[in-house]
């Protein structure tokens, strides 16, 4: 099945409904479909359609036009340095590229965002429906190394949409605020889900708390997806300006893309009691969401006296109906409830495939996410960092998360990260980077060490401690641990 079907059904069934809004541009589903047919004509002979720009109405047009012509859509991170962009474009070449200011690369033909909408005769072909066709190629963020090019096939994405969304289930008044970038899997799934549900997309190209709050109010936005750092910044902005959340139309906020601090979600629920919160866990390689902590789970957790139920506010919830999750130990043996190991996932939406390295699925279709975690006895998934981030001290596996969780409790620590540092005796040991609440009065290093020792045990005690004004996060809130490891090794 071709993802273009999503747009075709929407344009057939609700042509006059507003589909997408960005600045002064407003497109109905019919407008969107017309623009797609027109762009499809400009794709004659193109092998791929790349997109290097901030979020805008051209992004959904490009994605569906590429699908209509049966070529991969490749959105690229426009925030990267020019040499990195050049190197990614060389990997994508030959391709047609939508961009207003891209470097010159052999085999890349450019058209501007304005040219996307220039009117030409509509292409009159049908979307090809060959099994296994590639819909989208996304470069992973590369927090641990070079970005990998993940392959998402039409079948993966359609399985995700059909398995999670009812067609035209959104009320005509509903809209969603899209502030995630177009090259992120959440930016892709926002387009597919919103169009299938018939929910108007309100695009915010450059996130800031002020801009987000203003646009949400102005457009009566009812839904939004945020990465944890965005939610944190919105809360900080509002509380530091002594403002209250004045968003009466807002019904639901979903969050994901990184670890949500317990204190932030609790604060968000207190400040916005009328909003339903959903935690979504997913990866690029799984066509977005695979687990959900739904609004009822949030309420149950916050109201419960049972510590096990309360703890679920820190979980990523339970697998989607069409997705299976399994935890395995170092020997690839399935773990029991409560036992931590590696997270494996299976389902039609899971691609688990990259250019160059092929499919990572095992013979039974399981994909190793490289995330660590455990399932509780009710099937809630708790994540515990990336397998690559584990600190191996004398053969013992130490998760950075457990050290970070106890240190963040200290009142003079604002943010903290633990990473592996080289150690002559143990091979690796714990290093921590601390962002003090007040840079002028640094926390005592001995107090930090004894806190870890008392709360955990001596093997977890950091051998190296550094202070920084802030930790290095990428634009979607992922901590760049590789940068921190470099801090200790130089």
């Amino acid at each position: 099945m071709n993802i273009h079907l999503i747009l075709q059904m929407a344009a057939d069934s609700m042509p006059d409904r507003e589909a997408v809004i960005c600045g002064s541009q407003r497109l109905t589903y019919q407008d969107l479909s017309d623009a797609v047919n027109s762009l499809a004509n400009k794709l004659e002979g193109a092998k791929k359609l790349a997109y290097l720009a901030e979020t805008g109405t051209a992004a959904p047009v490009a994605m569906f036009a590429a699908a209509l012509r049966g070529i991969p859509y490749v959105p690229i991170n426009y925030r990267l340095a020019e040499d990195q962009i050049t190197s990614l474009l060389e990997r994508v070449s030959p391709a047609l590229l939508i961009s207003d200011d891209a470097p010159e690369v052999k085999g890349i033909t450019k058209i501007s965002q304005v040219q996307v909408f220039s009117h030409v005769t509509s292409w009159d072909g049908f979307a090809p429906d060959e099994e296994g066709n590639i819909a989208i190629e996304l470069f992973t963020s590369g927090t641990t190394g070079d970005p990998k090019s993940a392959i998402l096939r039409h079948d993966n994405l359609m399985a995700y949409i059909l398995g999670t969304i009812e067609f035209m289930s959104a009320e005509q008044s509903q809209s969603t605020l899209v502030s995630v970038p177009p090259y992120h899997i959440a930016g892709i799934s926002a387009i597919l889900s919103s169009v299938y549900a018939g929910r108007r997309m309100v695009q915010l190209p450059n996130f800031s708390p002020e801009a987000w709050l203003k646009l949400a109010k102005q457009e009566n936005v009812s839904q939004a997806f945020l990465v944890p750092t965005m939610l944190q910044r919105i809360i900080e902005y509002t509380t530091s300006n002594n403002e209250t959340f004045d968003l009466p139309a807002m019904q639901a906020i979903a969050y994901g893309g990184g670890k949500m601090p317990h204190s932030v979600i609790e604060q968000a629920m207190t400040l916005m009691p009328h909003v339903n919160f959903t935690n979504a866990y997913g990866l690029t390689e799984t066509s977005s969401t695979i687990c959900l902590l739904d609004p009822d789970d949030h309420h149950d957790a916050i109201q419960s006296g049972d510590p096990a139920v309360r703890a679920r506010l820190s979980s990523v919830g339970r697998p989607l109906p069409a997705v299976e999750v399994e935890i395995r130990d170092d020997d690839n043996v399935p773990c029991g409830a409560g036992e931590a190991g590696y997270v494996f996932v299976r389902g039609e939406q899971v691609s688990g495939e990259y250019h160059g390295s092929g499919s990572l699925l095992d013979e039974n279709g399981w994909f190793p996410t490289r995330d660590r975690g455990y399932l509780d006895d009710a099937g809630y998934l708790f994540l515990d960092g990336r397998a690559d981030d584990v600190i191996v001290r004398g053969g013992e596996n130490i998760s950075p998360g457990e050290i970070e969780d106890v240190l963040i409790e200290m009142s003079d620590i604002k943010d903290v990260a633990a990473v592996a540092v080289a150690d002559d005796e143990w091979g690796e040991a714990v290093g921590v980077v601390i962002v003090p609440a007040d840079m002028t009065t640094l926390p005592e290093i001995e107090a930090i060490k004894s806190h870890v020792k008392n709360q955990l045990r001596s093997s977890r005690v950091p051998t190296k401690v550094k202070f920084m004004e802030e930790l290095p996060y990428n634009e979607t809130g992922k901590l760049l641990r590789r940068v921190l490891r470099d801090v200790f090794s130089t």
Partner: protein
Amino acid sequence: MQIKAGTKLFSAVCDTQIMVLRVPKDDLDVTCGGLPMQTEEAAEKSLISDNAGEGSLVGKRYVDKAETMEFLCTRGGEGNISVNGVALEIKQAKRLPSSD
């Protein structure tokens, strides 16, 4: 008729279009409004011979009672969809909160 997942079928009597999501390997007699569905859209539609029920609804997934097969209605119409003479039912799916 032998059909497979991904096949598009068109009603001979109304606007209904369906997409095959999964089917058993057996020969299936898929009808809409009483006449066999076709793999190409007919220029002229026949008269509807079986008009009981509510027709087909766009966006709904249709299944048999045992859920051995599933179809997505990609365009609605007046005809009812049946397989081997038995009307299909709308699949009831658990409503999930929006996560994107």
